[in-house]
C-alpha cells in the first residue's frame, strides 16, 4: 500500500515536470532549467532565472506564453518556451 502510494506520488511529480509550452493558462510554475547560450543571459537580465516562481497569465492559441513574476509580465515565444524546463506548482 505504501509502495503504491509512493509510486503514485512519483508519477504525479514526474507529471508536474514539463516544459513551459505545456503549462495551461492560470497555472503556477517554477523554472527548473533555462536553455543555454545568449538567450539564458537575456532571460536572467529580464528577471527570469532558475528557481523563480511564476504564474502563466496567458497561453495564446499557437502556444505563445505570457508569464508573470511579481508585477512584471513577460511574453515568451513558443519555440523558446519549449526549451524552458519547469515544474508545475499548485500555488505560489
Amino acid at each position, binding site marked *: 500500500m505504501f509502495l503504491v502510494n509512493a509510486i503514485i506520488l512519483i508519477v504525479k511529480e514526474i507529471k508536474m515536470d514539463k516544459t513551459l509550452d505545456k503549462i495551461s493558462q492560470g497555472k503556477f510554475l517554477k523554472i527548473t532549467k533555462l536553455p543555454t547560450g545568449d*538567450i539564458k543571459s537575456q532571460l536572467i537580465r529580464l528577471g527570469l532565472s532558475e528557481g523563480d516562481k511564476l504564474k502563466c497569465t496567458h497561453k495564446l492559441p*499557437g502556444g505563445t506564453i505570457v508569464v508573470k513574476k511579481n508585477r512584471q509580465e513577460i*511574453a515568451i515565444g513558443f519555440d523558446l518556451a519549449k526549451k524552458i524546463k519547469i515544474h508545475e506548482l499548485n500555488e505560489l
Partner: protein
Amino acid sequence: MKSDEIKDELKPINNFIKQNKQNKIVLVGNPNVGKSCIFNYLSGMYVDVSNFPGTTVSITKGKYKDYDVYDTPGIYGVGSFNDEEKVARDIILDGDIVINVVNSLNLERDLFLTLQLIEMGKKVGVILNFSDEIKKRKIKINVQELSKILGVEIIETTAIDKKGFDKIDHLIENARVGNQPDEISSIIKNFASQNIPQAQALLILEGDSNISSKYKIEKIPIEQRENIYITRRNRVNEIVSQIEYEDSTKGEIFNWLGKISINPITGIPLLVMILTLVYFFIGNFVSQKVVNYTENKIGKGIFEYYTKSFISRYTNTEILTQLVDENKNVIDEKLFQFPDGSNSNPKLKEEFEKFSSHNNSISNFTFFNPYVKLFFGEFGVITMTITYLLFLLFPLVIGFYLVMAFLEDSGYLPRLATMLDRAFNKIGLNGRAVIPIMLGFGCITMANITTRLLGSEKEKSIVTAILQFVIPCSAQLAVIAVLLSGAGLKPMLIFITVIGSVLILLSTILNKLLPGESSPLLIDLPIMRFPRLSNIFKKTFYRSWGFMKEAGFWFFIGALGVGILDLTGLLKLWQDFLNPLTVHWLKLPKEASTAFVMGMVRRDFGAAGLFDLKLSTMQITVAIITITLFVPCIASFVVMLKERGLKEGLIIWLGTWVTAFFIGGLVAQIII
C-alpha cells in the same frame, strides 16, 4: 594664511578642470522607464539627434548647465546582444556620470542594470521613477536602506508631473562610485595591472568580445558571464526582498486593457478598431487633406512656381498656365514662350506674372537646356526632391511617427507583437516584425530603417523583402483606394487574394531558402497607460527630423540618377522596352508603361498615371496588382541598399520587377 590664499586662487581653475573633465552625463535605463521625460527636462528644447558612428541607431544629445547629456536606447543590461546595446555601452563607457532611471514598480528587473552599472565602477546616481504609482499600489520601498546597500545617491520622482525633478541637480552633484561586491572586485583587480579600466574589465569578464579584442584579451567562456549574471540576479532578488514591502495585494490595478489586447478574441477586434482610426488619421486626414495642401499649395504653388519662374528669366522656357475651377476643369489657358529667357521679354513676362497670379492657376514649365532640366525640370533634382521630401514625405512621416509614438508609449505594441507572434513564426519571423510591417503601410523608406530592431539577419532580410514586394505605402494606397472604389467588390477581392498569396508564398520561400535562425519572441510587457502627449510630440519631432536627415541625402542622389537617365534618353529606352510586355502580356494600353517607369521614382506617381487611361474594371485590377508588386520608390530603394547591402538590395529590387510582371501578367491572362 598664505597657503589659504593660494588655495582660493586655485579654486576656480580646479573647478574649470573639474567641469571640463567631468561633463558627460549619460541617462541609462530599461525601456519604458520615463527616461525621455527626464532627458527632456534636463535638455530643454535644444537637442541634437545623430547616428552613432558605425551603427544606425540614433542617439540624442542635449545640454544641461555645463554638462552634455546623452540619452541612450532602453536596455536591460550593458552588453552587445544587439546594435542598441552596443551603442548604449559605448556611450556609458565614455560617460563621466551615469544617471540610472529605474521603474519603481519593477525593481527586480531594473536593479539588474543598476548593479551592473555600479560594478562597472562608474559614478552613478539613481532615479526611482513612478513613485506615485508605488503609493497607489500600497508598496513601500525603503529608499534609505537601498541607498545604503548600493552606496549611491537615490531620489524619487514622478516623471508625469515632474515631481522630484528639483532634486536631480543634487543627484548629479552627488553621483559617486557605489559599493562593490567582493566577488567582482577581487577578479577585476587582476585587470587593473594591465591598465584596463574597471568598466571595460567587467564587460570583458562578461564575455563582450568587442571590448576584449580591443584590449587583445582572449574571449572569456560564456560560463563566466552566466556565473556573474546569476550572482547579480540573486543579489538583486535579495536586495528587493530586503527593501520592498507590499502592504496588501489589493493595491494591484486590474490591467484590463492589457488583457484585452493580448487575447486574440478581443485583441483582433481591438486591432481592427485601432487600424481604422489610424487609417482615418493617416489615410484620410494627413495623406489627403494635409499633404494636398502642403504639396500642391506650398510645394508646387509657391516653392516650385517661384523657383522655376526665377530660372525661366535666364533660359529658354515654355510656360503653359491653366486656370481651373473647383472641379479641376480648365477654364482658360495661355502658352508663354521665352526662347531667350523671360528677362529679354519684359512685357510678356509681366503678362505671365499677372495671368499666373490668379488663385487657381497651374503653371507648367518646360525647360530646354538639359542641365536646367536636370535640376529644375519635372523630375528636377532640386524642384521635385524638395517638394517630395518636405511637402509630401515630411507630413506623412510626422503623422506616422506620431501614431507609432502613441502606440509605443501606451504599451500596446509589445502586446500586439505577442498576439501575432505565432502567425509570424510560420514565416520565419517573430511578433516584433509587426512594427516595421505596420510602418510600411505609411512609408516603406521609414519601415526599411526600422527593420534594425529585428533580432537576426535572416529576419531583417525577410521583412525587407516583404516590404518592397507586397506592402503598398500610404501614398500608393490612397491612389489604389480611389481606383478600386469605382470598380466594385470583385476587383478588390482579387487584389487582396493575389497580394495575400504572394505575401505568404514569398515569405515561406525566403524562410526555407535563407540560412540562419530566427530569434524567438522574448519581450517585457509594460503596463498599459495613456501616453504623455508632450513626450509623444517630442519623440515624433526627433524621429521625423532624424529620418529626414537620413533619407533626404539619399533621395537627392536617387533623383540625380533618374534625372541623368532621363537626360541621356535611357529612360525613354526603358519605356520602349517595356511596351510589348505591357500590351501583350499585361493586356494594358501602351501608355501604361509610362506609369511603371514613373513608379520607380515615386510609387504613387506610378499608380496616379493610371487615372488618365480608359481602363476596364479587370484592367484596373491587373494594373494595381502589378503596381503594388512593382519596385519601391527611389528613396526606399536607396535606403534599402544602405541597410541591407548592395547585393541583397539589388536582388530584391530586380525580384520585384520579375514578380510584378509575372504575377500581373498571369492574372491578366486569366481574367481579361
